[in-house]
């Protein structure tokens, strides 16, 4: 397998790594860059646990090749914390107990963040539709929707 030097920006930081051409971005992030926030739930685009942004667009990192990150900007759940302070979405997920085992949580947070950037005041239906690609086996989704609504409200105050 040929390795390719990938120069990319992750959560605002310049990062370089040598990447085999048959590796997914999810594996590169976890195993080469050491960012293990994005999880592998399915590896086939169905569960959203691997959600990251690629040049600002929400994608499944399991369906992106690591080499495609070259010259692009990646955003992961690790980028949500600013100056040591949790993002309002993270705070509201804790407050509303919107997680149990937590494996789906990084994906939900990244997906919800991109939703709120585009639509600061989504309806419940819009939230459920936007998060339809994120599966959760524990919470029953309701608490997640409430947490996103509460975070949206909090963020609109600022």
């Amino acid at each position, binding site marked *: *397998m*040929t390795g*390719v030097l990938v120069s990319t920006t992750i959560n605002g930081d310049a990062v370089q790594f040598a990447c085999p*051409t*048959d*590796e*997914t971005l999810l594996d590169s992030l976890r195993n080469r860059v050491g960012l293990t926030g994005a999880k592998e739930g399915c*590896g*086939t*685009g*169905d569960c*959203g646990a691997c*959600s990251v942004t*690629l040049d600002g*667009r*929400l*994608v*499944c990192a*399991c*369906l*992106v*090749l690591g*080499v*495609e990150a070259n010259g692009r900007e990646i955003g992961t759940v690790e980028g949500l914390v600013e100056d040591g302070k949790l993002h309002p979405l993270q705070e509201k997920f804790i407050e509303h107990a919107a997680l149990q085992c937590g494996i789906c949580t990084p994906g939900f947070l990244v*997906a919800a963040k*991109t*939703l709120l950037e585009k639509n600061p005041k989504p309806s419940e239906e819009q939230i459920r*539709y*936007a*998060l*339809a*690609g*994120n599966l959760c086996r524990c919470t029953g989704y309701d608490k997640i929707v409430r947490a996103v609504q509460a975070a949206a409200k909090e963020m609109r105050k600022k």
Partner: protein
Amino acid sequence: MAVVDYNAPQSVQEAVALLSGSDIKTKVMAGGTDLIIQSKSQAVEPLRVVDLKHIAEMMSYSLDDGGLSLGPCMCCAEFTALHDVETLYPGLVEAAYLIGSTQVQGRASIGGNLCNSSPAADTIPALIAIGAKCRIVGAGGERTVAVEDFVTGVGRNCMQSGELLQRILVARPAPGSRDAYLRFIPRTEMDIAVAGAGISVTLDSQGVCTAARVAIGAVAQTALLVASAADALIGTQLDDASVAKAAAAASAAASPITDRRGTIEFRRHIVGVLVKRATLIAKERAQASL
């Protein structure tokens, strides 16, 4: 996965050259939402990937008096946000909007949906309904093929090795002409069509249907253009009786299979229902455009 070589050409010419330059199996990649999954499940055979997303013209579109000229690799998230396109081709936009999740739409392209040539691909009936054409390019030059002739079987299309889809072309609909796409899935989102229907109708100022195209998906080996269903609509006011006739013609044209998501009988029935409903939506849109 056995991707042994990754290439990101900057031009179509470069991409075409890469397609014929090797003994190793070579595939072009758009969003990779089909290709990467397929290569994960066929781990052994070495694969060269030619990523088309660094070619500007594959990612762009233009819309003018001549109609829509779409770079086939533009992702659905970008495509479904094009308001000028949505005004003229609402059915194609709604088909693209049905593909997968927000995440999948961030990568999946209409060209990839077409070239993957699944019988259940949502954009294929929608493209057939609006008379879309594929501009194919290869070492031997260019050719243009109607979408209904492009797909030739389950996962098969008329492109030869060394060719790629360069452009999707759709004429500009006249006032009074609009499209719609509907599919049936057992869930509310994130599922593959059990049946689908793409319709376009053209109405004159009296409300008479002067032209129509009816395409059905997921009920045969390929999406089908059903001329008998369109014939049932043309010359009518798209009244209930004519629409019911078109629905029956579509059900008769279907040759579905039974699988865990639907039986032959169910698919045959539901495709008629979808044709009826999509025709009424297209009719309303056509009236509003006059």
